[in-house]
């Protein structure tokens, strides 16, 4: 049953009795309340720069690029740049030899533009850009706020929490019984054999 508008006013809601109309007891009541809070309440704050806050795995900090075996996972498909609402991401691509075939020449995120929405992470087909747990960024000037590959690349091991969370939570697979064999995730048709072999040895 949907909600029902009810006049929930109680009797004498606005009429105060004699004792309540006395001014001083109310002042004392309020003061007593505050003093009780001082005694009873545990401290609710922490001393921020000294005590650091460690965010949960779900937290969207600054976006970083996953570094795997010294190289970026990014194949420079520009999808994150397309999905980015404030257009903070830009990159230049080049073709390389190897199974991935492509990589970014340069990759920049303007951290003054970034709104930490996590769309780049959501759309990335390679799990190459993820949101880290870093949240306190400061810059001296605008140039410094444009993060290049040097500051964006973070080793996979340091992002293990977030990557595990993404596996578990984000965009889970629904309503399908199809299994997704890893061999399907081939990056190159050039050397199918070596790619398949490397996956088999991994397994």
């Amino acid at each position, binding site marked *: *049953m*949907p*909600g*029902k*508008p*009810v*006049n*929930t*006013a109680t009797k004498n*809601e*606005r009429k*105060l009795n004699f004792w*309540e*109309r*006395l*001014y001083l007891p*109310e*002042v004392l*009541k*309020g003061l007593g*309340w*505050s003093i009780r*809070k001082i005694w009873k309440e545990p401290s*609710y704050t922490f001393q921020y720069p000294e005590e650091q806050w460690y*965010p*949960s795995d*779900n*937290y*969207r900090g600054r976006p970083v690029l996953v570094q795997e075996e010294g190289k970026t996972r990014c194949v420079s*498909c520009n*999808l994150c740049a*397309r*999905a980015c*609402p404030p257009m903070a991401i830009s990159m230049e691509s080049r073709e390389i030899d190897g199974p991935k075939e492509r990589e970014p020449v340069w990759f920049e995120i303007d951290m003054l533009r970034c*709104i*930490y*929405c*996590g*769309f780049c992470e*959501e*759309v990335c*087909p*390679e*799990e190459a850009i993820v*949101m880290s747990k870093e949240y306190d960024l400061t810059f001296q000037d605008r140039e410094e706020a444009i993060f290049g590959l040097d500051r964006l690349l973070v080793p996979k091991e340091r992002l293990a929490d977030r990557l595990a969370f*993404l*596996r578990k*939570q*984000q*965009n*889970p*697979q*629904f*309503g*399908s019984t199809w299994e*997704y*064999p*890893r061999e*399907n*995730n081939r990056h190159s048709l050039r050397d199918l054999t070596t790619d398949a072999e490397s996956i088999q040895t991994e397994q």
Partner: protein
Amino acid sequence: MSIIEQLDFSKTLSYWPRHNEAIYRRLESKHAWLEERHHPDDDEAVDPLDNEMILNIGPQHPATHGVIRCVVKLDGETIKKCVLDIGYLHRGLEKLAESKTYQEFMPYTDRMDYLSPYSNNVAWCLAVEKLAAIEVPERAQWIRMIMSELARISSHLLWMGVSLMDAGAVSVFLWTFQFREDLYNIFDEVTGARLTVSHSRIGGLVTDLGEKGIEMIEDFIERFPVAVGEWEKLLNRNRIWIDRVDGVGVLTAEEAVELGMTGANLRGSGVGHDIRRFEPYLKYDEVDFTIPIRTEGDALARYFVRMEEMKEAIIIIRQCLDRLPEGEIRSDDAKRSYPGKDEVYYSMEGLIHDFMVTDTGVCPPNGAEAYHAIEAPKGELGFFLQSDGTGRPCRVRINSPSFSNLQGLESMLEGGMMGDMVVMIATVDPVLGEADK
């Protein structure tokens, strides 16, 4: 032409003088019904403070809840006329939406009513889903409801803290912010950000509500009603508070409807209109709750309404948690919303859909129009969308509750006392990020 004339920008840069003059002209020429309302003909008494004064309050004033400017004409301490100047926080969201895909615009709605960003996300997604006829899985709808009600509590808590602080009770602000901190922790755990949640997506949600999130919400709804009870014990029978708000900013039911007030401002005047009941969205037609109303229409009535709405929100969340089904949180139609990550990583079709949904997004049929409104904490928040068949909206119109509510503020202020002005602004509960869009 001499060089001095060339450098004289006074004509081209004269927006502010012209704007101010227009405001003052409007104030002068405004016909307020004050004489009839407050000085009946037989009342010959002359106010000893017979000095008219024009006073600017705001845009930057701690009591104006944002950047709102009130130009008032004072007769002694009575406000004779008032002209509101809004638009200081205008960011052109409606125009901005036309150059974004439906998905891309979603984070921008966080920045509208920044006290309850989740409700805005839900409103936008529901409007787009209505426009493109997208089915949302049950679980996603229930989670959206839970989070929207938490957003309602969060917004009302801020309203309560700030309005009591305006009335002089600073410590209440700190107590409500303690619970807002709890709410922010819940939002952080569930959505990934404290304020700019960006959690709802076209066709569902981005992440599921996990065990820990449910635990935190359950813990909150255990503790919160106790705290509300304590606050009510302190405030409901408190002479200082009741004297301050009783009979301040009265709007009758007719006036409230005529001025287009929404939300608690309307229900405080005795009009029992709530979109959750009359045009149920999500699963509001399946849960049981009452819509508290009052008939007095003053600031105290709105205070009671909002306090009870917070308690009702807890009741709704309890029912949602009981009935939260297992299942999907995102539409399974890969043409309308993102496919699962496994599919994107390991199948060609998934990858193509990922690119398609990002680049073109949902494409509602050409000429389709939809208006969808939800009961946001402040009132009716509606999005009108017009599609031209592409992935971007052709036209977006935002019907924001703060903007509608501010229309009634002028009429409330006129005839009021100068000292009650901060209380009246607080009782309307405007958020200027939303009013100015």
